[in-house]
Protein backbone atom coordinates (compact mmCIF):
# COMPACT_ATOMS: atom_id res chain seq x y z
CA UNK A 1 0.00 0.00 0.00
CA UNK A 2 2.92 2.33 0.78
CA UNK A 3 4.32 1.67 -2.70
CA UNK A 4 0.97 2.37 -4.32
CA UNK A 5 0.81 5.71 -2.54
CA UNK A 6 4.45 6.41 -3.31
CA UNK A 7 5.85 6.86 0.18
CA UNK A 8 8.62 4.94 1.93
CA UNK A 9 7.03 4.76 5.37
CA UNK A 10 3.80 5.53 7.17
CA UNK A 11 5.63 8.34 8.97
CA UNK A 12 5.85 10.23 5.70
CA UNK A 13 2.06 10.48 5.65
CA UNK A 14 2.23 12.72 8.71
CA UNK A 15 4.66 15.28 7.32
CA UNK A 16 1.94 17.93 7.20
CA UNK A 17 2.15 18.00 11.00
CA UNK A 18 5.00 20.35 11.95
CA UNK A 19 7.95 18.24 13.00
CA UNK A 20 8.20 19.61 16.53
CA UNK A 21 4.70 18.37 17.26
CA UNK A 22 5.22 14.84 15.98
CA UNK A 23 5.69 12.26 18.72
CA UNK A 24 8.82 10.15 18.43
CA UNK A 25 7.84 7.40 20.84
CA UNK A 26 4.62 5.51 21.43
CA UNK A 27 2.59 6.99 24.27
CA UNK A 28 3.02 5.49 27.76
CA UNK A 29 -0.48 3.98 27.88
CA UNK A 30 -1.44 0.82 29.78
CA UNK A 31 -1.81 -2.21 27.51
CA UNK A 32 -1.94 -3.63 24.92
CA UNK A 33 -4.29 -6.16 26.47
CA UNK A 34 -5.76 -9.33 25.04
CA UNK A 35 -9.49 -9.96 25.27
CA UNK A 36 -8.95 -12.12 28.35
CA UNK A 37 -6.95 -9.42 30.11
CA UNK A 38 -9.57 -6.80 29.33
CA UNK A 39 -12.27 -8.99 30.84
CA UNK A 40 -10.11 -9.61 33.90
CA UNK A 41 -9.52 -5.88 34.37
CA UNK A 42 -13.25 -5.11 34.28
CA UNK A 43 -14.19 -8.10 36.43
CA UNK A 44 -11.77 -6.82 39.05
CA UNK A 45 -13.45 -3.39 38.91
CA UNK A 46 -16.91 -4.95 39.19
CA UNK A 47 -15.77 -6.70 42.37
CA UNK A 48 -14.88 -3.29 43.88
CA UNK A 49 -18.47 -2.11 43.51
CA UNK A 50 -21.77 -2.97 45.16
CA UNK A 51 -22.21 -6.30 43.40
CA UNK A 52 -24.59 -8.46 45.43
CA UNK A 53 -25.92 -5.54 47.50
CA UNK A 54 -29.64 -4.82 47.88
CA UNK A 55 -30.38 -1.21 46.93
CA UNK A 56 -33.32 1.01 47.85
CA UNK A 57 -32.12 3.85 45.67
CA UNK A 58 -34.29 5.42 43.01
CA UNK A 59 -34.15 9.20 42.59
CA UNK A 60 -34.28 9.14 38.82
CA UNK A 61 -32.59 5.78 38.20
CA UNK A 62 -34.59 2.62 38.77
CA UNK A 63 -34.00 -1.13 38.95
CA UNK A 64 -36.76 -2.69 36.89
CA UNK A 65 -37.31 -6.09 35.36
CA UNK A 66 -35.54 -6.46 32.03
CA UNK A 67 -35.92 -9.18 29.46
CA UNK A 68 -32.81 -10.76 27.97
CA UNK A 69 -34.63 -10.50 24.64
CA UNK A 70 -34.26 -6.73 24.37
CA UNK A 71 -30.56 -6.89 25.21
CA UNK A 72 -29.97 -9.68 22.69
CA UNK A 73 -31.76 -7.78 19.94
CA UNK A 74 -29.94 -4.48 20.45
CA UNK A 75 -26.66 -6.40 20.13
CA UNK A 76 -27.48 -7.41 16.58
CA UNK A 77 -24.71 -5.76 14.60
CA UNK A 78 -27.25 -4.33 12.16
CA UNK A 79 -28.61 -2.14 14.96
CA UNK A 80 -25.54 -1.78 17.15
CA UNK A 81 -23.03 -0.81 14.46
CA UNK A 82 -25.11 1.37 12.17
CA UNK A 83 -24.95 5.15 11.95
CA UNK A 84 -27.68 7.76 12.20
CA UNK A 85 -30.21 6.79 9.49
CA UNK A 86 -29.57 9.63 7.04
CA UNK A 87 -29.42 7.14 4.12
CA UNK A 88 -33.00 5.97 4.38
CA UNK A 89 -32.82 3.16 1.82
CA UNK A 90 -30.40 1.15 3.95
CA UNK A 91 -31.64 2.31 7.36
CA UNK A 92 -35.25 1.21 7.28
CA UNK A 93 -34.72 -1.00 10.33
CA UNK A 94 -33.64 1.87 12.56
CA UNK A 95 -36.15 4.30 11.04
CA UNK A 96 -39.09 1.93 11.47
CA UNK A 97 -38.11 1.28 15.08
CA UNK A 98 -37.80 5.01 15.75
CA UNK A 99 -41.29 5.55 14.32
CA UNK A 100 -42.54 2.88 16.71
CA UNK A 101 -40.69 4.54 19.59
CA UNK A 102 -42.30 7.90 18.78
CA UNK A 103 -45.70 6.23 18.70
CA UNK A 104 -45.18 4.45 22.04
CA UNK A 105 -44.06 7.68 23.70
CA UNK A 106 -47.20 9.43 22.45
CA UNK A 107 -49.43 6.63 23.69
CA UNK A 108 -47.79 6.69 27.11
CA UNK A 109 -47.68 10.44 27.65
CA UNK A 110 -50.99 11.32 26.02
CA UNK A 111 -49.18 13.80 23.77
CA UNK A 112 -49.49 14.12 19.98
CA UNK A 113 -45.87 13.97 18.86
CA UNK A 114 -42.61 12.70 20.37
CA UNK A 115 -39.01 12.96 19.16
CA UNK A 116 -36.52 10.20 18.48
CA UNK A 117 -34.72 10.78 21.80
CA UNK A 118 -32.72 13.28 23.83
CA UNK A 119 -29.66 12.48 25.98
CA UNK A 120 -31.65 11.84 29.17
CA UNK A 121 -34.39 13.25 31.38
CA UNK A 122 -32.34 16.18 32.70
CA UNK A 123 -31.33 17.49 29.28
CA UNK A 124 -34.80 16.75 27.88
CA UNK A 125 -36.31 18.94 30.61
CA UNK A 126 -33.78 21.68 29.90
CA UNK A 127 -34.51 21.58 26.17
CA UNK A 128 -38.25 21.61 26.93
CA UNK A 129 -37.78 24.83 28.86
CA UNK A 130 -35.80 26.43 26.03
CA UNK A 131 -38.56 25.31 23.66
CA UNK A 132 -41.18 26.98 25.87
CA UNK A 133 -39.11 30.15 25.79
CA UNK A 134 -39.13 30.13 21.98
CA UNK A 135 -42.85 29.37 21.83
CA UNK A 136 -43.91 32.11 24.23
CA UNK A 137 -41.21 34.70 23.64
CA UNK A 138 -41.01 35.03 27.43
CA UNK A 139 -37.91 34.61 29.55
CA UNK A 140 -39.03 33.77 33.09
CA UNK A 141 -39.43 30.17 34.23
CA UNK A 142 -40.93 28.86 37.46
CA UNK A 143 -39.49 25.51 38.52
CA UNK A 144 -40.82 23.41 41.39
CA UNK A 145 -38.24 22.59 44.05
CA UNK A 146 -39.71 19.11 43.99
CA UNK A 147 -38.12 18.62 40.55
CA UNK A 148 -35.00 16.40 40.66
CA UNK A 149 -32.19 18.59 42.04
CA UNK A 150 -29.72 17.47 39.39
CA UNK A 151 -32.23 18.23 36.64
CA UNK A 152 -32.55 21.73 38.07
CA UNK A 153 -28.76 22.05 38.13
CA UNK A 154 -28.53 21.13 34.45
CA UNK A 155 -31.22 23.67 33.61
CA UNK A 156 -29.32 26.32 35.56
CA UNK A 157 -26.10 25.55 33.66
CA UNK A 158 -27.79 25.91 30.27
CA UNK A 159 -29.98 28.89 31.22
CA UNK A 160 -27.23 31.00 32.75
CA UNK A 161 -26.05 32.67 29.56
CA UNK A 162 -29.33 32.78 27.69
CA UNK A 163 -31.03 35.53 29.64
CA UNK A 164 -33.42 33.04 31.18
CA UNK A 165 -34.58 33.92 34.67
CA UNK A 166 -35.34 30.90 36.82
CA UNK A 167 -37.33 31.10 40.03
CA UNK A 168 -38.01 28.15 42.29
CA UNK A 169 -41.39 27.31 43.80
CA UNK A 170 -41.52 25.55 47.15
CA UNK A 171 -43.49 22.49 48.23
CA UNK A 172 -46.30 21.94 50.69
CA UNK A 173 -46.84 19.38 53.44
CA UNK A 174 -48.25 17.05 50.81
CA UNK A 175 -44.88 17.15 49.01
CA UNK A 176 -46.52 18.78 46.00
CA UNK A 177 -45.64 22.11 44.39
CA UNK A 178 -47.00 25.02 46.42
CA UNK A 179 -49.65 25.89 43.84
CA UNK A 180 -51.09 28.64 46.03
CA UNK A 181 -48.04 30.79 45.25
CA UNK A 182 -48.77 30.58 41.52
CA UNK A 183 -50.81 33.76 41.47
CA UNK A 184 -51.64 35.78 38.40
CA UNK A 185 -49.05 38.31 39.49
CA UNK A 186 -46.36 35.68 39.93
CA UNK A 187 -47.20 34.12 36.55
CA UNK A 188 -47.08 37.39 34.61
CA UNK A 189 -44.65 37.06 31.66
CA UNK A 190 -43.74 33.48 32.63
CA UNK A 191 -42.79 31.17 29.76
CA UNK A 192 -43.30 27.93 31.62
CA UNK A 193 -44.13 26.31 34.91
CA UNK A 194 -42.00 23.20 35.35
CA UNK A 195 -43.06 20.28 37.54
CA UNK A 196 -42.08 16.64 37.85
CA UNK A 197 -44.61 13.87 38.44
CA UNK A 198 -44.07 11.65 40.30
CA UNK A 199 -41.80 14.31 41.74
CA UNK A 200 -38.44 13.90 43.45
CA UNK A 201 -40.22 13.01 46.70
CA UNK A 202 -42.21 10.33 44.86
CA UNK A 203 -45.40 12.38 45.11
CA UNK A 204 -47.81 12.79 42.20
CA UNK A 205 -48.64 16.34 41.09
CA UNK A 206 -52.09 17.46 39.99
CA UNK A 207 -51.37 18.18 36.35
CA UNK A 208 -54.85 19.31 35.17
CA UNK A 209 -55.05 22.01 37.86
CA UNK A 210 -51.49 23.21 37.27
CA UNK A 211 -52.09 23.34 33.51
CA UNK A 212 -55.17 25.48 33.99
CA UNK A 213 -53.26 27.86 36.25
CA UNK A 214 -50.36 28.17 33.81
CA UNK A 215 -52.56 28.54 30.74
CA UNK A 216 -54.64 31.20 32.49
CA UNK A 217 -51.54 33.40 32.49
CA UNK A 218 -50.41 32.50 28.98
CA UNK A 219 -47.64 30.24 30.29
CA UNK A 220 -46.94 26.66 29.22
CA UNK A 221 -46.81 23.67 31.55
CA UNK A 222 -43.70 21.52 31.22
CA UNK A 223 -44.01 18.16 32.96
CA UNK A 224 -40.99 15.97 33.65
CA UNK A 225 -41.29 12.26 34.26
CA UNK A 226 -38.24 10.54 35.74
CA UNK A 227 -40.01 7.26 36.63
CA UNK A 228 -41.67 6.25 33.37
CA UNK A 229 -43.09 2.95 34.65
CA UNK A 230 -45.56 5.08 36.63
CA UNK A 231 -47.36 5.66 33.30
CA UNK A 232 -48.59 2.07 33.47
CA UNK A 233 -51.11 3.17 36.05
CA UNK A 234 -50.81 6.94 36.62
CA UNK A 235 -52.92 9.26 34.48
CA UNK A 236 -50.73 10.73 31.70
CA UNK A 237 -50.03 14.50 31.66
CA UNK A 238 -52.32 15.19 28.70
CA UNK A 239 -52.88 18.80 29.75
CA UNK A 240 -49.15 19.55 29.81
CA UNK A 241 -47.82 21.39 26.77
CA UNK A 242 -44.45 19.70 26.77
CA UNK A 243 -43.51 16.43 28.46
CA UNK A 244 -39.83 15.72 29.11
CA UNK A 245 -39.25 12.14 30.10
CA UNK A 246 -36.43 9.84 31.18
CA UNK A 247 -36.96 6.39 29.65
CA UNK A 248 -34.35 4.49 31.70
CA UNK A 249 -37.11 2.59 33.50
CA UNK A 250 -38.01 0.86 30.24
CA UNK A 251 -35.49 -1.95 30.34
CA UNK A 252 -32.26 0.06 30.53
CA UNK A 253 -29.72 -0.88 33.22
CA UNK A 254 -28.53 1.77 35.72
CA UNK A 255 -24.90 1.55 34.44
CA UNK A 256 -23.69 4.04 37.02
CA UNK A 257 -25.46 6.94 35.32
CA UNK A 258 -25.92 6.13 31.65
CA UNK A 259 -26.46 5.80 28.79
CA UNK A 260 -30.21 6.29 29.23
CA UNK A 261 -32.79 7.80 26.89
CA UNK A 262 -34.59 11.12 27.18
CA UNK A 263 -37.63 12.08 25.16
CA UNK A 264 -39.66 15.20 24.48
CA UNK A 265 -43.34 14.86 23.65
CA UNK A 266 -45.63 17.75 22.83
CA UNK A 267 -48.58 18.99 20.80
CA UNK A 268 -48.55 18.79 17.00
CA UNK A 269 -48.69 22.56 16.69
CA UNK A 270 -45.39 22.94 18.57
CA UNK A 271 -43.44 20.39 16.52
CA UNK A 272 -41.35 22.94 14.61
CA UNK A 273 -39.94 24.28 17.85
CA UNK A 274 -39.16 20.81 19.17
CA UNK A 275 -35.47 19.79 19.18
CA UNK A 276 -34.19 16.35 18.21
CA UNK A 277 -34.59 14.00 15.29
CA UNK A 278 -37.93 12.79 13.96
CA UNK A 279 -38.78 9.86 11.72
CA UNK A 280 -41.77 10.32 9.44
CA UNK A 281 -43.77 8.00 7.23
CA UNK A 282 -43.68 8.35 3.46
CA UNK A 283 -43.59 6.22 0.30
CA UNK A 284 -41.04 5.34 -2.37
CA UNK A 285 -41.51 5.70 -6.11
CA UNK A 286 -43.25 2.32 -6.24
CA UNK A 287 -45.70 3.37 -3.53
CA UNK A 288 -44.18 1.19 -0.81
CA UNK A 289 -44.36 2.47 2.76
CA UNK A 290 -41.05 3.65 4.17
CA UNK A 291 -39.66 6.02 6.76
CA UNK A 292 -37.27 8.98 6.59
CA UNK A 293 -35.79 11.51 8.97
CA UNK A 294 -37.91 14.58 8.51
CA UNK A 295 -38.37 18.22 9.54
CA UNK A 296 -34.56 18.37 9.58
CA UNK A 297 -34.57 22.12 8.97
CA UNK A 298 -34.95 22.50 12.75
CA UNK A 299 -31.56 20.88 13.27
CA UNK A 300 -28.02 22.16 13.60
CA UNK A 301 -26.60 20.57 10.45
CA UNK A 302 -28.94 22.74 8.39
CA UNK A 303 -29.82 25.77 10.45
CA UNK A 304 -26.48 26.00 12.30
CA UNK A 305 -26.58 28.88 14.82
CA UNK A 306 -30.35 29.25 14.38
CA UNK A 307 -31.15 25.61 15.14
CA UNK A 308 -33.62 24.60 17.86
CA UNK A 309 -30.77 22.83 19.71
CA UNK A 310 -27.15 21.76 19.26
CA UNK A 311 -28.07 18.08 19.73
CA UNK A 312 -26.68 15.75 17.07
CA UNK A 313 -25.77 12.36 18.53
CA UNK A 314 -28.77 11.14 20.55
CA UNK A 315 -29.52 7.86 22.34
CA UNK A 316 -31.00 5.86 19.45
CA UNK A 317 -29.84 2.43 20.62
CA UNK A 318 -31.54 2.91 23.98
CA UNK A 319 -34.66 4.24 22.33
CA UNK A 320 -34.63 0.92 20.48
CA UNK A 321 -34.07 -0.97 23.75
CA UNK A 322 -37.02 0.85 25.33
CA UNK A 323 -39.16 0.12 22.27
CA UNK A 324 -38.39 -3.60 22.37
CA UNK A 325 -38.91 -3.70 26.14
CA UNK A 326 -42.32 -2.03 25.86
CA UNK A 327 -43.39 -4.40 23.07
CA UNK A 328 -42.43 -7.36 25.25
CA UNK A 329 -44.08 -6.20 28.43
CA UNK A 330 -47.09 -4.97 26.48
CA UNK A 331 -50.29 -3.31 27.49
CA UNK A 332 -51.19 -5.65 30.34
CA UNK A 333 -47.66 -6.23 31.55
CA UNK A 334 -46.85 -2.55 31.96
CA UNK A 335 -49.96 -2.05 34.02
CA UNK A 336 -49.10 -5.08 36.12
CA UNK A 337 -45.53 -3.87 36.63
CA UNK A 338 -46.81 -0.49 37.77
CA UNK A 339 -49.26 -2.13 40.16
CA UNK A 340 -46.47 -4.22 41.68
CA UNK A 341 -44.47 -1.05 42.31
CA UNK A 342 -47.44 0.59 43.94
CA UNK A 343 -48.12 -2.42 46.17
CA UNK A 344 -44.49 -3.00 47.18
CA UNK A 345 -43.87 0.64 48.00
CA UNK A 346 -47.01 0.72 50.10
CA UNK A 347 -45.95 -2.43 51.90
CA UNK A 348 -42.44 -1.09 52.50
CA UNK A 349 -43.69 2.24 53.80
CA UNK A 350 -45.97 0.46 56.26
CA UNK A 351 -43.18 -1.85 57.44
CA UNK A 352 -40.75 1.01 57.95
CA UNK A 353 -43.30 3.24 59.67
CA UNK A 354 -43.69 0.56 62.33
CA UNK A 355 -40.18 1.39 63.55
CA UNK A 356 -40.30 3.80 66.50
CA UNK A 357 -39.22 7.29 65.48
CA UNK A 358 -39.67 6.64 61.75
CA UNK A 359 -42.50 8.45 60.03
CA UNK A 360 -43.71 9.52 56.60
CA UNK A 361 -42.88 13.15 55.79
CA UNK A 362 -45.34 14.00 53.01
CA UNK A 363 -49.05 13.26 52.82
CA UNK A 364 -49.36 13.24 48.99
CA UNK A 365 -50.08 10.15 46.89
CA UNK A 366 -46.95 8.26 45.87
CA UNK A 367 -46.03 5.70 43.23
CA UNK A 368 -42.89 3.75 44.20
CA UNK A 369 -40.88 6.24 46.25
CA UNK A 370 -41.55 7.99 49.53
CA UNK A 371 -39.72 10.17 52.05
CA UNK A 372 -39.17 9.04 55.64
CA UNK A 373 -37.98 10.98 58.64
CA UNK A 374 -35.52 9.17 60.89
CA UNK A 375 -34.48 9.97 64.44
CA UNK A 376 -30.85 10.24 63.38
CA UNK A 377 -28.68 11.03 60.37
CA UNK A 378 -29.54 9.00 57.27
CA UNK A 379 -25.85 8.80 56.43
CA UNK A 380 -25.11 7.11 59.75
CA UNK A 381 -27.93 4.65 59.24
CA UNK A 382 -26.71 3.93 55.72
CA UNK A 383 -23.18 3.39 56.96
CA UNK A 384 -24.42 0.64 59.26
CA UNK A 385 -26.70 -0.81 56.56
CA UNK A 386 -23.75 -1.16 54.18
CA UNK A 387 -22.27 -3.74 56.55
CA UNK A 388 -25.39 -5.81 55.91
CA UNK A 389 -24.94 -5.31 52.15
CA UNK A 390 -27.91 -2.96 52.01
CA UNK A 391 -27.81 0.41 50.25
CA UNK A 392 -30.31 2.43 52.23
CA UNK A 393 -32.41 5.54 51.60
CA UNK A 394 -30.99 8.50 49.68
CA UNK A 395 -30.16 11.24 52.23
CA UNK A 396 -32.08 14.39 51.24
CA UNK A 397 -30.10 16.87 53.33
CA UNK A 398 -27.48 17.35 50.60
CA UNK A 399 -30.01 18.92 48.24
CA UNK A 400 -32.58 20.17 50.75
CA UNK A 401 -30.92 21.56 53.90
CA UNK A 402 -34.34 21.65 55.60
CA UNK A 403 -34.71 17.90 55.02
CA UNK A 404 -31.80 16.55 57.03
CA UNK A 405 -32.60 13.24 58.73
CA UNK A 406 -34.95 12.54 55.86
CA UNK A 407 -34.33 9.83 53.31
CA UNK A 408 -35.92 8.85 49.99
CA UNK A 409 -36.80 5.16 49.73
CA UNK A 410 -37.53 3.44 46.43
CA UNK A 411 -39.08 0.00 46.07
CA UNK A 412 -39.73 -1.49 42.65
CA UNK A 413 -41.22 -4.78 41.46
CA UNK A 414 -37.74 -6.31 41.57
CA UNK A 415 -37.53 -6.07 45.37
CA UNK A 416 -38.51 -9.31 47.15
CA UNK A 417 -40.69 -8.97 50.25
CA UNK A 418 -37.99 -10.66 52.35
CA UNK A 419 -35.50 -7.91 51.45
CA UNK A 420 -37.98 -5.20 52.42
CA UNK A 421 -38.41 -6.96 55.76
CA UNK A 422 -34.65 -7.28 56.15
CA UNK A 423 -34.28 -3.53 55.57
CA UNK A 424 -36.91 -2.76 58.20
CA UNK A 425 -35.38 -5.18 60.70
CA UNK A 426 -31.90 -3.74 60.21
CA UNK A 427 -33.00 -0.12 60.51
CA UNK A 428 -34.88 -1.05 63.68
CA UNK A 429 -31.78 -2.71 65.08
CA UNK A 430 -29.54 0.21 64.13
CA UNK A 431 -31.86 2.73 65.75
CA UNK A 432 -32.04 0.63 68.91
CA UNK A 433 -28.24 0.73 69.18
CA UNK A 434 -27.18 3.84 71.10
CA UNK A 435 -24.83 6.20 69.24
CA UNK A 436 -21.32 5.65 70.51
Amino acid sequence: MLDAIGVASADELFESIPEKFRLREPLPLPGPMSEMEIIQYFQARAAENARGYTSFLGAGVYQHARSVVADALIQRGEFLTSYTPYQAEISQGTLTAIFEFQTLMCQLTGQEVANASMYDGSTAMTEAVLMAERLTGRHRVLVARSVHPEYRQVLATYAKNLGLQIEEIGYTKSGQIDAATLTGEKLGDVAAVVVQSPNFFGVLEEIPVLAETAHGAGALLVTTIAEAVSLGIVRPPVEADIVAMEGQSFGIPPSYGGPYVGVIATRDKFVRQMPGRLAGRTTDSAGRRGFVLTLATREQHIRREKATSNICTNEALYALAATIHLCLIGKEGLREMALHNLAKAKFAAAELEKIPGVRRVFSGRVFNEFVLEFPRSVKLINHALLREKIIGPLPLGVHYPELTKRGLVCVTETMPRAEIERLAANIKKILETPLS
Partner: protein
Amino acid sequence: MYPADFHYTKDHEWVKVDGSIATVGITEYAQEQLGDVVFAELPKIGAKLNAGQAFGTVESVKAVSEIFMPVSGEISEINPTLSDTPENINKDPHGSAWLVKIKMSDAAEVSKLMDAKAYEGYVAAQAKEH
Protein backbone atom coordinates in the same frame (compact mmCIF):
# COMPACT_ATOMS: atom_id res chain seq x y z
CA MET B 1 -41.34 35.94 -16.70
CA TYR B 2 -41.10 38.72 -14.09
CA PRO B 3 -44.24 40.93 -13.99
CA ALA B 4 -43.49 44.47 -15.06
CA ASP B 5 -45.69 46.04 -12.39
CA PHE B 6 -43.75 44.37 -9.55
CA HIS B 7 -40.68 45.66 -7.70
CA TYR B 8 -37.86 43.32 -6.67
CA THR B 9 -35.20 42.97 -3.97
CA LYS B 10 -31.70 41.52 -4.07
CA ASP B 11 -32.91 38.81 -1.71
CA HIS B 12 -35.44 37.71 -4.36
CA GLU B 13 -38.65 39.02 -2.86
CA TRP B 14 -41.20 40.75 -5.10
CA VAL B 15 -43.53 43.59 -4.12
CA LYS B 16 -46.81 44.66 -5.69
CA VAL B 17 -48.09 48.03 -4.54
CA ASP B 18 -51.77 48.85 -4.27
CA GLY B 19 -52.27 52.19 -2.55
CA SER B 20 -50.61 51.97 0.85
CA ILE B 21 -50.66 48.14 0.81
CA ALA B 22 -47.69 46.12 -0.48
CA THR B 23 -48.18 42.46 -1.33
CA VAL B 24 -44.97 40.43 -0.96
CA GLY B 25 -43.84 37.06 -2.26
CA ILE B 26 -40.68 35.25 -3.38
CA THR B 27 -39.66 35.23 -7.02
CA GLU B 28 -39.64 32.44 -9.55
CA TYR B 29 -35.84 32.41 -9.32
CA ALA B 30 -35.97 32.03 -5.52
CA GLN B 31 -38.42 29.13 -5.59
CA GLU B 32 -36.37 27.35 -8.20
CA GLN B 33 -33.17 27.73 -6.18
CA LEU B 34 -34.90 26.43 -3.09
CA GLY B 35 -36.52 23.37 -4.66
CA ASP B 36 -39.68 21.74 -3.34
CA VAL B 37 -41.06 24.04 -0.68
CA VAL B 38 -42.40 22.15 2.33
CA PHE B 39 -43.14 24.93 4.80
CA ALA B 40 -43.51 28.68 5.09
CA GLU B 41 -43.20 30.38 8.46
CA LEU B 42 -44.98 33.72 8.45
CA PRO B 43 -45.20 36.52 11.03
CA LYS B 44 -48.19 37.46 13.15
CA ILE B 45 -50.64 40.00 11.78
CA GLY B 46 -49.88 43.35 13.35
CA ALA B 47 -46.11 42.83 13.53
CA LYS B 48 -44.27 46.06 12.76
CA LEU B 49 -40.99 45.60 10.95
CA ASN B 50 -38.42 47.69 9.12
CA ALA B 51 -37.20 47.21 5.58
CA GLY B 52 -34.45 44.58 5.52
CA GLN B 53 -35.61 42.78 8.64
CA ALA B 54 -36.29 39.04 8.37
CA PHE B 55 -40.00 38.34 8.78
CA GLY B 56 -40.22 34.62 8.08
CA THR B 57 -38.72 31.61 6.38
CA VAL B 58 -39.44 29.41 3.43
CA GLU B 59 -38.15 25.87 3.80
CA SER B 60 -37.37 22.95 1.53
CA VAL B 61 -36.36 19.53 2.83
CA LYS B 62 -32.72 20.46 3.33
CA ALA B 63 -32.60 24.26 3.22
CA VAL B 64 -34.05 27.22 5.03
CA SER B 65 -34.32 30.59 3.33
CA GLU B 66 -35.08 33.72 5.33
CA ILE B 67 -37.39 36.26 3.78
CA PHE B 68 -36.81 39.96 4.37
CA MET B 69 -39.12 42.99 4.47
CA PRO B 70 -38.75 44.83 1.15
CA VAL B 71 -40.36 47.91 2.73
CA SER B 72 -41.11 49.02 6.29
CA GLY B 73 -44.56 48.69 7.77
CA GLU B 74 -47.09 46.58 9.56
CA ILE B 75 -48.14 43.06 8.53
CA SER B 76 -51.81 43.45 7.63
CA GLU B 77 -52.53 40.02 6.16
CA ILE B 78 -50.84 36.64 5.74
CA ASN B 79 -51.68 34.12 3.05
CA PRO B 80 -53.84 31.54 4.84
CA THR B 81 -53.58 28.90 2.10
CA LEU B 82 -49.84 28.28 2.47
CA SER B 83 -50.00 26.20 5.65
CA ASP B 84 -51.94 23.51 3.77
CA THR B 85 -50.43 23.94 0.33
CA PRO B 86 -46.83 25.19 0.63
CA GLU B 87 -46.22 23.61 -2.80
CA ASN B 88 -48.10 26.55 -4.32
CA ILE B 89 -44.97 28.59 -3.70
CA ASN B 90 -43.33 26.43 -6.38
CA LYS B 91 -46.33 26.47 -8.69
CA ASP B 92 -47.47 30.09 -8.57
CA PRO B 93 -44.90 32.23 -6.72
CA HIS B 94 -45.94 35.47 -8.40
CA GLY B 95 -49.68 34.92 -7.94
CA SER B 96 -51.76 32.92 -5.50
CA ALA B 97 -48.72 32.03 -3.36
CA TRP B 98 -48.06 35.57 -2.14
CA LEU B 99 -46.79 35.52 1.45
CA VAL B 100 -47.87 38.66 3.29
CA LYS B 101 -49.45 42.07 2.83
CA ILE B 102 -47.78 45.06 4.44
CA LYS B 103 -49.35 48.36 5.35
CA MET B 104 -46.42 50.52 4.34
CA SER B 105 -45.14 53.21 6.68
CA ASP B 106 -43.04 54.88 3.97
CA ALA B 107 -44.22 54.25 0.42
CA ALA B 108 -41.16 56.08 -0.90
CA GLU B 109 -39.03 53.05 -0.02
CA VAL B 110 -40.49 51.23 -3.03
CA SER B 111 -38.48 53.45 -5.33
CA LYS B 112 -35.26 51.95 -3.93
CA LEU B 113 -36.22 48.49 -5.29
CA MET B 114 -35.39 47.05 -8.71
CA ASP B 115 -37.86 47.03 -11.58
CA ALA B 116 -38.46 43.85 -13.60
CA LYS B 117 -35.77 44.60 -16.14
CA ALA B 118 -33.11 45.36 -13.54
CA TYR B 119 -34.05 42.24 -11.63
CA GLU B 120 -33.81 40.05 -14.72
CA GLY B 121 -30.30 41.34 -15.25
CA TYR B 122 -29.48 40.72 -11.59
CA VAL B 123 -30.76 37.14 -11.78
CA ALA B 124 -28.82 36.46 -14.97
CA ALA B 125 -25.63 37.63 -13.26
CA GLN B 126 -26.38 35.46 -10.20
CA ALA B 127 -27.01 32.41 -12.37
CA LYS B 128 -23.62 32.86 -14.03
CA GLU B 129 -21.87 32.87 -10.67
CA HIS B 130 -23.31 29.47 -9.77
